[in-house]
C-alpha cells in the first residue's frame, strides 16, 4: 500500500506554511468523489497508512509538486512490495 503521509510531510517541510491545506483544496473534488475526509489535522495525527484510490494519490502527488514548486522526490514515490 502506498503511504501518502510522507508526501504531505515533504510538502510541509519544503513548501509554504499552509502547503497541506493548499494541497487539500486542490484535490477536494476527488476527496468528495471518493467519500474521504482528509484534513490537515487528520493527516498530522495519521499513524496508520490510509488506503487511497490511485487517482487520488496521483492528484495529491501532482498537487504537492505544484505547491512546493519542485517534483516530489522519487524516494517518496517508491511503493513497498505488496501481494494485494
Amino acid at each position, binding site marked *: 500500500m502506498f503511504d501518502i503521509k510522507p508526501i504531505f510531510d515533504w510538502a*510541509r517541510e519544503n513548501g*509554504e*506554511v*499552509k502547503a497541506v*491545506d*493548499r494541497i*487539500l*483544496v*486542490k484535490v*477536494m*473534488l476527488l*476527496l*468528495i468523489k471518493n467519500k474521504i*475526509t482528509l*484534513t*490537515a*489535522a487528520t493527516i*498530522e495525527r495519521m499513524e496508520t497508512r490510509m488506503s487511497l484510490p490511485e487517482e487520488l494519490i496521483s492528484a495529491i502527488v501532482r498537487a504537492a509538486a505544484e505547491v512546493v514548486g519542485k517534483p516530489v522526490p522519487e524516494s517518496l514515490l517508491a511503493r513497498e512490495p505488496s501481494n494485494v
Partner: protein
Amino acid sequence: MFDFADFGYDFATNRLVVGGEPMVLHCHHYNCFLQRSIQDAEYIDSAPILVGAAAEVVFAQLTNLLARTPDVAARKALVESLYRACGLGLIDLSAVTDRGGQVRTRSTHYSIGWKEKFGTSRAPVAFFSTGFLAGALAAIYGLPLSGIEARQTACRSTGADEDVFVLGRGPANFTIFPPRQNAVLIPVGKDAEPSTSVDRAAITRAVAEMPLPVNSEGLIPAFGVYVTRIYANYYNRISYAFEQEMTALAGREGVEVAASLFIEAGHVCAFFTLGGIMVSPEWDALTLPMLKTREDWFHGITAWWNACGYGVAKVLDVSPTGATVRIYNDYESVGYRRMYGTADHGICYLVTGGWAGVMNLIYLGDIHRKPDLTPEFYDRLFKGGRAFQGRMTACQAMGDPYTEIRAELAEPGAGERRLEGARASA
C-alpha cells in the same frame, strides 16, 4: 481629480466610506495570496466571482460618485484618478466608448505584485482590474452592469510587455451578485483597556490623515510593500462567495479548508503590512518614541490598524502569553451581513489570523529589532510549533455585539504542529 482627502475618515467607527463603499488598506502580499487561495480550487470557476466582485463594488461606488458629473470626459478623468489613488496602477480610458474598447497599460497592481510575490504566472491575474473596468464602463455610460463583457487578454505577470483589457457589450461574463442590504453598524462600547503610554487616538488620527504617495506608475510603494486602498466588500465578496461554493461542494470540510487559508491570509497581512509598518521610518517618527514595553508595541500597532478602515479595535488585555482584541464593526462582519445576513459560523478570518500574526511579530519575532521581513523569516515565524494561535470568541456577523479575537501562545508537544482555527459554529 479624485482625492481620498476629500472624504473624511470616520474616527467614531474607523471607516473610510467613499461613494457608499468602505475602503481598506492592504498590500500586494495579502491581495495576491487571497486570490491564489481561491484559484487553487481549480474545479470552481472563480474568474467570474473575482471579476464580478470588483465590478459590483466599483459600479455601486461610481454610480454615486459620478452622479453630479454629466460630462463623459470628466467622468473618465475621475475614474482614472480614482484607480490611481487606490494604488491600482494606471489606466487610460480615452479609447473606450459606450460600446467598449481596449485598455492597455504597463502598470497594474495585481500583475506587478503577483510576479513579484509568486514569479511568472501561467495566465492573466488582474481580475480585480478587469472587474473595475467593467464597473467603470457601466457607470460612465449609465449602462446596466449585466450588459457588460470584460476580459484580460494579456498580463505582465505572464511575461507580456503590458496588460490588455477588452471591454464590450453583451451578457455579462462575470457573476452579477444579488443586491446588498444597507450596512448596519453597532455602537462602540466603553470597554476598559489596560493603561499604556501610547496615545493611540493621536496616532490613529495622524496615520488616517497621512497621504499615501502614489508613484508615476500609479502604485503605492510603502512599508516595503505595494499598498492598495480598495474595497472592503471586494475582499468580502470573493471570500464568502468562494466559501459558499466550497460549502456546496464539500459541506463543513470545505468551509474548514477555506477558513484555514483565509486565516493564513491574515498572517500574511500581519507579517508584511503591519510588520512593514513597524520597521518603517514613519513608525519610528510617529510611534516609537511612545513605546517602552512590548505591550506598548501592541497598542501602537493597534493604533495603526485603527487607521486602516478595518473597524474599531480595542485591546482588552495583552501579555507575553496572549491578547484579547475586541473589534466593533469589523469590515468582514459588516460586509457579510449586508450580503448574506446572519452567519451560522465565525467568518472573521482576516482578524483571526491578523492579531495572531501581530503577537508572533512582537513576542516571537522581536520586531523591535527591525528584522528583514523576508519569506524565510515568515516561514520561521509561522511554520514552527511555538506560535500564537488566533480564535474567534465572538463574531458580529453571527449576531454578537462585537467581534473578539483571542490570540494565545501555543506550545505543541513533541511531534505536534500548530493547528489554528476559527470558531466553527454558533
